[in-house]
């Protein structure tokens, strides 16, 4: 057996999952450092999953004060009112998360991290941003890419009963085990900017419609200078207008981005908890794969829509 052994405590606690991914992956997990920014329902689910899995450390970033809104899909915020006054979502969540697994270090990072220098991101192996604006996604992704160290970058969004994950593992090598055969694989990922710049007309016809719908709303919030999720049903007409413009610019058919889907995505500001659980679960699995270097990672988008129940992987890169 190579490397140091897991402690007796670790072996007892992680018994069932070591049976899934092995001791070696467990060891790598325990040495990984993860940054999670934007603690909405999906991110909370994700945090729970990786803390239970036994990563080395998790840094939380969300300066919003604890309000009823933040409570909606958040099981990390206890409902004892008074004691939470003046605390941020990240502070309260970090307390609850520490409880889940004492072997994981949980800390809080304050401030707008999208304005931080690249060095800041170099402290982490994995950076996850949840419910970020288009501009902020771009910025953080570019900073992660500037580092000599490979930092895995993920964005995760949940609008109504739909969810999206974007993955950037840059140049990524891993071992794949399928049907008792092990193969070495190599993948090249585009950045977020490169991926969303791929002309829609060149994408496969049967691509998930969610991809286009998410881009339209993201762009809408960007040009209107709104924060994530600040779009509502009253904006539908303007959103549809932007959809038409984007489809024309991309020489794509408007039927790719149905009115009903756009209407659904902006219907309410809240996330649908079962979808948070599904997306947060898939994201957790993806991060565990990336850290352990085992198993096919998603390249490079994942979509889930509770309405049809499909969880689909789409490869959106110019060389796809």
């Amino acid at each position: 057996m190579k490397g140091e052994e897991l402690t007796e405590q670790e072996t007892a606690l992680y018994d069932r999952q070591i049976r899934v991914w092995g001791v070696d992956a467990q060891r790598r997990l325990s040495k990984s450092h993860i940054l999670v920014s934007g603690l909405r329902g999906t991110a909370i689910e994700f945090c729970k999953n990786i803390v239970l899995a036994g990563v080395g450390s998790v840094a939380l970033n969300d300066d919003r004060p604890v309000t009823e809104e933040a409570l909606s899909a958040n099981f990390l915020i206890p409902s004892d009112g008074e004691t939470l006054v003046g605390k941020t979502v990240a502070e309260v969540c970090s307390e609850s998360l520490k409880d889940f697994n004492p072997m994981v270090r949980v800390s809080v990072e304050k401030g707008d991290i999208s304005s931080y220098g690249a060095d800041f991101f170099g402290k982490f192996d994995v950076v996850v941003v949840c419910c970020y604006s288009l501009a902020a996604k771009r910025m953080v992704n570019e900073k992660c890419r500037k580092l000599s160290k490979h930092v895995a970058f993920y964005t995760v969004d949940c609008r109504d009963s739909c969810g999206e994950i974007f993955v950037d593992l840059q140049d990524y090598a891993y071992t794949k085990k399928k049907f008792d055969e092990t193969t070495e694989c190599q993948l090249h990922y585009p950045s977020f900017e490169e991926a969303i710049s791929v002309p829609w007309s060149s994408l496969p016809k049967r691509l998930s419609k969610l991809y286009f719908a998410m881009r339209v709303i993201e762009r809408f919030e960007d040009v209107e200078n709104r924060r994530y999720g600040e779009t509502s049903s009253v904006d539908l007409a303007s959103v549809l207008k932007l959809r038409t413009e984007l489809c024309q610019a991309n020489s794509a058919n408007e039927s790719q981005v149905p009115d009903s889907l756009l209407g659904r995505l902006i219907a309410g500001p809240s996330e649908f908890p079962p979808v948070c659980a599904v997306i947060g679960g898939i994201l957790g699995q993806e991060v565990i794969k990336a850290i352990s270097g085992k198993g096919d990672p998603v390249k490079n988008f994942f979509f889930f829509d509770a309405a049809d129940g499909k969880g689909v992987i789409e490869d959106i890169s110019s060389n796809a």
Partner: protein
Amino acid sequence: MAAAATDHQLSAIKGKKVLMVGAGGIGCELLKTLALSGFQDIHIIDMDTIEVSNLNRQFLFRQIHVGQSKAKVARDAVLRFRPKISITPYHANVKDPEFNVDFFKQFHVVLNGLDNLDARRHVNRLCLAADVPLVESGTTGFLGQVTVHVKAKTECYECQPKPAPKTYPVCTITSTPSKFVHCIVWAKDLLFSKLFGDKNQENDLNVRSGDANSSSERSEDVFVRKPDEDIDQYGRRVYDHVFGYNIEMALSNEETWRNRNRPRPIYIRDVPSAALTRQNGNVENTKTADDPLSVSAMVSVGLKNPQEVWSLVENSRIFLEALKLFFSKREQEVGNLSFDKDDQLAVEFVTAAANIRASSFGIPLHSLFEAKGIAGNIVHAVATTNAIIAGLIVIEAIKVLRNDTSNYRMTYCLEHPSRKMLLMPVEPFEPNKNCYVCSETPLLLEINTHRSKLRDIVEKIVKARLGMSLPLVMHGAALLYEVGDDLDEAMVANYSANLDKVLSELPSSVTGGTVLTVEDLQQELSCNINIKHREEFDEEKEPDGMILSGWTQALTTENNKNSPAGGTETLPVGKKRKISESSNASSTSFEEKKEEVAIEYSDIVASNQYIVRKGDNAAWTIVSCHLSRTFLMKI
């Protein structure tokens, strides 16, 4: 305002009463997601208490809760972030009589997060009897599935037969093991029970030699510790008997070894250092042994890493030390112990014994970690899959509450994407008209009515195969057997006498052509069994001397003319690689062909028996086979 779900969904949930069965891996996730989604009235049943190995995924529990009721602790944990909802916990077995049909009738939907076939079948039957929709689920590793069972609309949980847990022919276990699992079964079910379990239980531990009478009498005393016998002496005597003498006995049957490798007897004198170290005085377990489950031979012997494969000497040392610890530190338990995967010392003993036996038979040795997985039938489990499955259960539960029948889906969570999908929804199947649980089709039982006893039918068919807990067996109007608290003594005596009678000699003779009616009053399930007399059975294939068929036949029929492949075949693991080719070739659109790809699992432990199920114009093949479940794909 922060709505937890859209108004549409909330109105469907409002005022609805939900029963959750299981507060384990899926259960914790499910209770959390139900509460966040706006469910107000949740009842939860779980008989288990919390263990350390649960904490990596059952996130509502902490170290300080170990030993407490899962249902109750889960309730308290969820009320911390949703204090205003009502959660009613039951620390009880779902098979308890209090959870009868009337109990089930009060719920609008039942959600299963169970870990065993038996309880799943029981809940399925009660849901059918109470006419309450059931959302069923299961996970293993990265694989999982959610299915919806609504009476008369979709198939019930038992419409597709679930393969029975793998059993091994007795002689493979006692005399001719060829796999490590055979050694584990021997160590756990035979040796461990013999030494530490109920002495009155039947046990096939001793091999039958040519001269059976004399040797069996001799060996009966071997396992009993003589008065004043030194414990080390006793351990070495047992060691020599089971790993040395018994192997010599087996070797004396020349016939057995004609086409097999001959095993090597191992005596303690062959591994002198194992005994030697112990005579030099072993390191005392310094931990205070107030918790008997913390006594450990590994600690005494100085072995730390459960992932490591021990040598024969190390295994021998653990064997002797574990045996000694049982008789010194846990003496009061000896005589009524049964193997428990969470009992460290029991796992150590079984690992060591299985490994020593494996050495004899030239079978590769395994680590304690691996041996524990096999001995305890441990299902691989991670938090992420459970979280995903719980989310999917809630999505289906809301559809059921909205009576959105056309949108019900079975969803499969895959490890490797199939047609780009990691989560694959499939339309539910219609009820199987041959299902003995949700239809009235009789079963067929082939049995030797001049040799088999009523007990064989009650134990091996009615209880084990049909999953009835409180069965009643009738031949026409004549009651042959029933159980219950309200029976008078004469009836109990009568039924117990019937159990030991050969079928054809029962008061109301059971012969070929007889129709038996079996019922379980608690499950409100009744079905008929047509009896067919058969003289001979293949001892290897049908060790019970019975063949039950009926609802199974519809699925394993070999000649379906509609099948493009021309018939169903059982594929060995090695042929699975073709899946990607065949599925790519036909993947024109999955939008239009929703049923083109479907996967099914079966709760089956360490099985190497693959059932290929045939649906509409489609053959099935195996996608992956895990410790407890087989995944099949329609191609």
